[in-house]
């Protein structure tokens, strides 16, 4: 390609001069070596959790620990993990919380961003900064009164208390607002002329056209809800009301001599988020670049 613009280069076969190829090639060897070393070191924990979850104590609970199940793969670790704590029930709890949070954040973010961008709103800047200011408040600094409020309302140890504070998030409002700002305003004027109602325009035009951003928000809110730890640690107190994240920490204290079983629980907790990172990466990237000045 570059040869076409360089008149004195060799035959126009599209190949680079051999010298340059060698230089590029050697530089790439360095890149591959660097990537290879980092790959082995950084992905070892991923390898170990997957393989270790099939190891019997004879392989994983010895010194030096084996890197491969020499005594054979043991699927029983998963069965044991499911018996030690009500993992299936906890899985459902986590899923219920995540679904509530995803739906809640989609609804509250879309409605608020719609008002901020498309509607005639008094004191628009004030509301914008008020909503965004929630991103600056560290959740841990208000976790005590939030816990006390749930205790007063008798919601401790329930699913709703786990989801309620997360039904709206400053990040969600910000993300959706960015997408709405890029929306062609001519469409709104055209819709007005055609007599489309305010809500009709949101539902039939704006939402369908910003689906990728809404998917990104869905993925992000799912990840944060599924993975949360501090709040469920306080709120859910009996095993059958706990989320999977709290459950797997109980596996460790249940039987410290069976790390394979503990790792099996970790793998089970990882399945949904691992699938999202493998197959929903473009939505994750869309979400993370929104705030980073790009």
């Amino acid at each position, binding site marked *: 390609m570059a040869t076409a613009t360089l008149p004195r280069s060799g035959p126009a076969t599209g190949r680079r001069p051999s010298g340059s190829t060698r230089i590029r090639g050697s530089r*790439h060897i360095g890149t591959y070596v660097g990537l290879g070393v*980092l*790959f082995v070191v950084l992905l070892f924990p991923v390898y170990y959790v997957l393989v270790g979850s099939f190891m019997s104590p004879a392989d994983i609970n010895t010194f030096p620990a084996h890197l491969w199940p020499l005594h054979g793969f043991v699927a029983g670790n998963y069965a044991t993990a499911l018996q030690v704590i009500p993992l299936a029930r906890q899985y459902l709890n986590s899923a219920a919380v995540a679904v509530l949070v995803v739906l809640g954040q989609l609804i509250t973010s879309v409605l608020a961003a719609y008002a901020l961008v498309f509607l005639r*709103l008094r004191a628009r800047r004030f509301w914008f900064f008020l909503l965004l200011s929630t991103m600056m408040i560290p959740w841990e*600094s208000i976790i*005590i*009164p939030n816990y006390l409020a749930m205790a007063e309302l008798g919601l401790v140890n329930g699913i709703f208390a786990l989801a309620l504070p997360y039904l*709206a998030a400053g990040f969600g409002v910000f993300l959706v607002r960015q997408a709405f700002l890029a929306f062609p305003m001519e469409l709104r004027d055209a819709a007005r002329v055609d007599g489309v109602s305010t809500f009709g325009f949101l539902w039939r035009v704006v939402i369908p056209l910003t689906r990728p951003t809404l998917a990104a928000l869905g993925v992000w809110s799912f990840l944060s809800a599924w993975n949360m730890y501090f709040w469920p640690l306080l709120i859910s107190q009996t095993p059958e009301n706990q989320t999977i994240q709290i459950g797997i920490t109980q596996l460790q204290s249940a039987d410290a001599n069976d790390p394979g079983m503990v790792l099996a629980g970790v793998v089970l907790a990882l399945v949904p*988020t691992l699938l999202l990172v493998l197959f929903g990466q473009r939505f994750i990237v869309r979400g993370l670049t929104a705030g980073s000045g790009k």
Partner: protein
Amino acid sequence: MAGAAPPRPSERAGRGRRREELAAFVYLVPALVVFICFFFVPLGRSVYLSFQRSDIFGRPNGFVGARHYVELLTDPDFGRTLLVTLGFVLLTVIPSLLIGLVLALLLAGRIRLVRFFRTAFALPFAFSVATAAVLFGVMMDPATGVINSLLSLVGIDAVGWLTDPGVALVSVAITSVWMQLGYTMLVLSAGLGAVPDDVIEAARLDGASGLQLQTRVMLPLITPQLFFLVVTGTIQALQSFGQINILTTGGPDRSTTTLVYSIYEVAFANNNSNFGAGSAQAIVLLIVVLAITAVQFGVLERKVYYN
């Protein structure tokens, strides 16, 4: 002109406008209700509680003025907590930025398998604090952990990753850095991917070598992303809790008791229910986070290259 014809056009427009403004406000209400109930009211209540004594059930039990704050300032344990917190921030933010940068720069080279490597290095992003901490807890087990096993193969003695007060904070930081790497790499890769090809070609034609290209050309162009990661990484490190609670419960010898862990300890652990003193620490956390955010924006923003 039309004389006494009832509603003048401007009046009608005014009324319609007020209705529109009211309708717009209605769209804000759901988000506002959540934020008022779970952010703004609790914030006020945190401040209130921090000036109250707590009875043994944790109920506010009389105004004590700034006593909780004075106690914090004069308590050497709390000074140590703040130092541990600062150490933890440095031990997580700097390594995660450096390793993430190396990864992103390596992946920016035009090589095959880029997609494979990028997906692979993003995998830690799937881990929650609980899954990562439980996994690293198993791997760092002093007796049978796989890390000490591998070290023994090269003749290194067993390290008390979670039991040695001099090492435990580093171990918790390693776990946190590992969890964040996928995110750091994705942000920086997105930044590098946005560097226009002609900028890179121009630098090459000017004779820039690979290393020069990366440090002199690419690095300044992704300062917005680096800045973003420093701010969010610092705040995230300040708020870390799960990995500490799971791996070390603040020990050994309080060597991993950070500010957030201390809040948990005072307010929730062992049914302590000392919500007054805990709230004072929570307000300190809030002030620290806000101050760092402000300082970082003030100092760093000027050095950031925005085109």
